[in-house]
């Protein structure tokens, strides 16, 4: 069997697996977020929080919950790293410096998991398992909560209420993420991922001598890192590390974990707005972009253009033998079209066009299928833009899901789509104007430019993968990427919730002959086009300087 055919079959297997879990998981999540019954242990949790899960919140209250929880999380994680040196169970690692501790805290709370530290050389059990992995759960649950709040905004009539943030946070964590993680972690251990709490110890080698091993709760963190589209590796090599991702099967399983919730949430959405077909139209849009990007990535990586790759006889630099080119291409698209940023191969050593596909995937706003929650709300924002554009064409006030998209709604939507490009392009430009940031580049020329563009694209879009040649552990990058991650995560949430609140206050308008049918394939086409044109054009000049220049020269 040729590697290309094997790659295509792996993609098909993934499609089947995703298809099989789409309905049960999507329906389960709809039930979780609609239920008003709470299990006994959940009641204890609400008691400990001091919140009544049945109290509906209007958007400002919901937003206050999101921001307060996240602010406390950043502070807690920052302090945990700052005192690591004095904590037991830290494997002798020292406390993290302030700028790096801020960067890492912002990164994990913002569901980004950009890492300017080397996992196996910096973080002990307490910070990894009790701090970072916890944010892998809860930052994902926050994303899902905001998405569900937006869906409720579409679904509700004149109530103005978006649900209860604490209830959504807790339910998302304990009823969705936790059960899948327990099963998934054991699957990964069965494949060979490690799961222990042994310290650093010496193990013998074949030719004599010994080498140092780090133990750790790796499988339990690996599974939620993918499932919650977080991406922060236990080890520096992330999912390329054999202890995180031991074989081809664990690899495919990890890609599956990355994609299940974001895709299945479109069914949850369909259920909650009372029309599964609306969910399918969104699903179709996501699937078209995802499959298209994967096909392009496989094509360029198998072609392996670039002087060093042609010399070597294939683009295997930065790729593992057990995965090869096909499975690496599948993983690298899944991770950049979601907010994951885990890597099983190193994107900086992708072909010029391959790196460009990674960049564009993130720049589209990570909506195909996107991060858990953030993918759905990002895509719904684009859907609002698409109906608005269609409305302009026929001169009619646009509607989506029975809600009028008026001036107020479109303002929030426009602000949403302007934030990330502004952060990415301004910080990238600033880095090149200043003297020192460019010293961090490993590669020069077009690829060097891409390293810095990639860093801010990844940060502001909450991805977390890197063209890792860039030495990002400097005060400039730690601070500015930290800021980009926080603003890139929470400002959009502000506008999503404001939009949701505005929609929730409206009474639904009846469908008429003039209503754009947003559940039809035509709308999927319109949506794909809007996404490509709006985000694609925003970044085109920057992409031309980086990956396009590199790809065309090869």
């Amino acid at each position, binding site marked *: 069997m040729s590697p290309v055919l094997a790659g295509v079959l792996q993609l098909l297997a993934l499609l089947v697996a995703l298809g099989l879990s789409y309905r049960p998981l999507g329906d389960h999540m709809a039930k979780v977020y609609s239920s008003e019954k709470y299990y006994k242990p959940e009641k204890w949790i609400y008691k*400990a929080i001091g919140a009544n899960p049945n109290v509906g919140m209007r958007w400002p209250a919901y937003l206050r919950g999101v921001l307060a929880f996240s602010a406390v*999380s950043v502070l807690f994680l920052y302090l945990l790293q700052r005192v690591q040196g004095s904590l037991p169970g830290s494997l002798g690692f020292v406390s993290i410096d302030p700028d790096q501790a801020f960067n890492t805290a912002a990164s994990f709370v913002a569901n980004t998991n950009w890492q300017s530290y080397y996992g196996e050389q910096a973080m002990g059990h307490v910070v990894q398992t009790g701090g970072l992995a916890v944010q892998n759960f809860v930052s994902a649950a926050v994303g899902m909560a905001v998405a569900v709040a937006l869906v409720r905004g579409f679904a509700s009539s004149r109530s103005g209420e978006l649900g209860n943030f604490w209830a959504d946070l807790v339910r998302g964590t304990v009823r969705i993420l936790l059960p899948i993680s327990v099963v998934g972690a054991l699957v990964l251990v069965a494949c060979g991922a490690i799961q*222990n709490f042994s310290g650093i110890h010496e193990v013998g080698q074949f030719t004599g001598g010994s080498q140092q091993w780090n133990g750790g709760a790796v499988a339990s963190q690996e599974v939620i890192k993918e499932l919650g589209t977080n991406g922060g590796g236990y*080890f520096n090599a992330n999912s*390329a590390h054999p202890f995180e991702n031991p074989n081809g099967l664990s690899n495919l399983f990890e890609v599956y974990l990355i994609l299940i919730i974001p895709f299945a949430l479109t069914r949850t959405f369909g259920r909650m707005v009372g029309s599964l077909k609306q969910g399918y139209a969104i699903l179709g849009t996501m699937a078209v972009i995802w499959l298209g990007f994967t096909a392009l990535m496989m094509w360029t990586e198998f072609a392996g253009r670039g*002087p*060093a790759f042609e010399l070597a006889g294939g683009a295997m630099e930065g790729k593992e033998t057990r995965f090869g080119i096909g499975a690496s291409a599948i993983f690298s698209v899944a991770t950049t079209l979601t907010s994951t940023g885990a890597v099983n*191969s190193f994107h900086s050593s992708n072909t010029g066009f391959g790196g460009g596909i990674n960049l564009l995937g993130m720049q589209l706003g990570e909506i195909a299928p996107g991060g858990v929650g953030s993918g759905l709300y990002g895509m719904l924002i684009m859907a609002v833009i698409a109906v608005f554009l269609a409305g302009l064409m026929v001169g009619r006030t646009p509607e989506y899901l029975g809600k009028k998209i008026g001036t107020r709604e479109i303002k929030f939507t426009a602000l949403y789509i302007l934030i990330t490009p502004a952060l990415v392009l301004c910080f990238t430009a600033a880095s090149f104007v200043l003297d020192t940031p460019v010293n961090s580049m490993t590669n020069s020329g077009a690829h060097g430019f891409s390293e810095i563009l990639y860093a801010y694209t990844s940060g502001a879009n909450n991805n977390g993968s890197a063209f890792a040649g860039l030495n990002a552990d400097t005060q400039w990058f730690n601070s500015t990427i930290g800021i980009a991650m926080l603003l890139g995560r929470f400002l959009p949430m502000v506008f999503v919730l404001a939009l949701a609140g505005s929609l929730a206050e409206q009474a639904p308008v009846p469908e008429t002959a003039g209503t754009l049918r947003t559940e039809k394939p035509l709308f999927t086409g319109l949506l794909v086009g809007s996404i490509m044109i709006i985000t694609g054009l925003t970044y085109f000049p920057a992409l031309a300087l980086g990956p396009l220049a590199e790809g065309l020269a090869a």
Partner: protein
Amino acid sequence: MNNSVGNTGRVLWAGLRALLVLTVITGVLYPLAVTGIAQLAFPSKANGSETKDGSGKVVGSELIGQTYDLPLKGSEKTAAPDLKWFQPRPSNGLGGNGVNTRYKLILSGATNRSGDNEDLIKWVTDAKAAVVKDNSVNGYTVKPSDVPADAVTSSGSGLDPHISPEYAKLQVHRVAEKNGLDAEQVEKLVADHTDDRILGFIGEPRVNVLQLNIALKNLVAAKG
């Protein structure tokens, strides 16, 4: 104003309590439970898949690549490969940061060099020349076009435990000669240690270098 400050304080306090409760659940109970089950059900795998040689001594993990080098001589900075053994892929990762850890678990990582990077072009060129030279032995010549990509490139982790079956086959004649074995014997050894794709299509065919070298050592010992 007072009201809003009080309100903010109350929400922050609720946020802190939520974080602490969820930390106990997802940061303490969950990892401990998973560790407990994993240690009971898959003790060897959960602890790193340690591999033993013929004499029962632990010689590493089947998942983690190693170097098979000669002892460092005099002024050498990097040890020369011990050509008696099958050689793994190059590992030039993190060299740019001054800590090339070559197959040491203390720091994993890739080179992050792009396809048009001068260093990478040089590394690939040098590696190719070395593979051709080392493996061309009596009556067996390696052409540059025979050298597979994995033989001259570094992996993502820098710890790749595998090489492609092509690269293993290419080393057969050299290994046979250095160990005084028949090429057919070593060829069979490689064939026995070649893993196909899982279920026929997942991942890539590969040879685990550590297990292959352990088997080679046993073969040499049995003969001598």
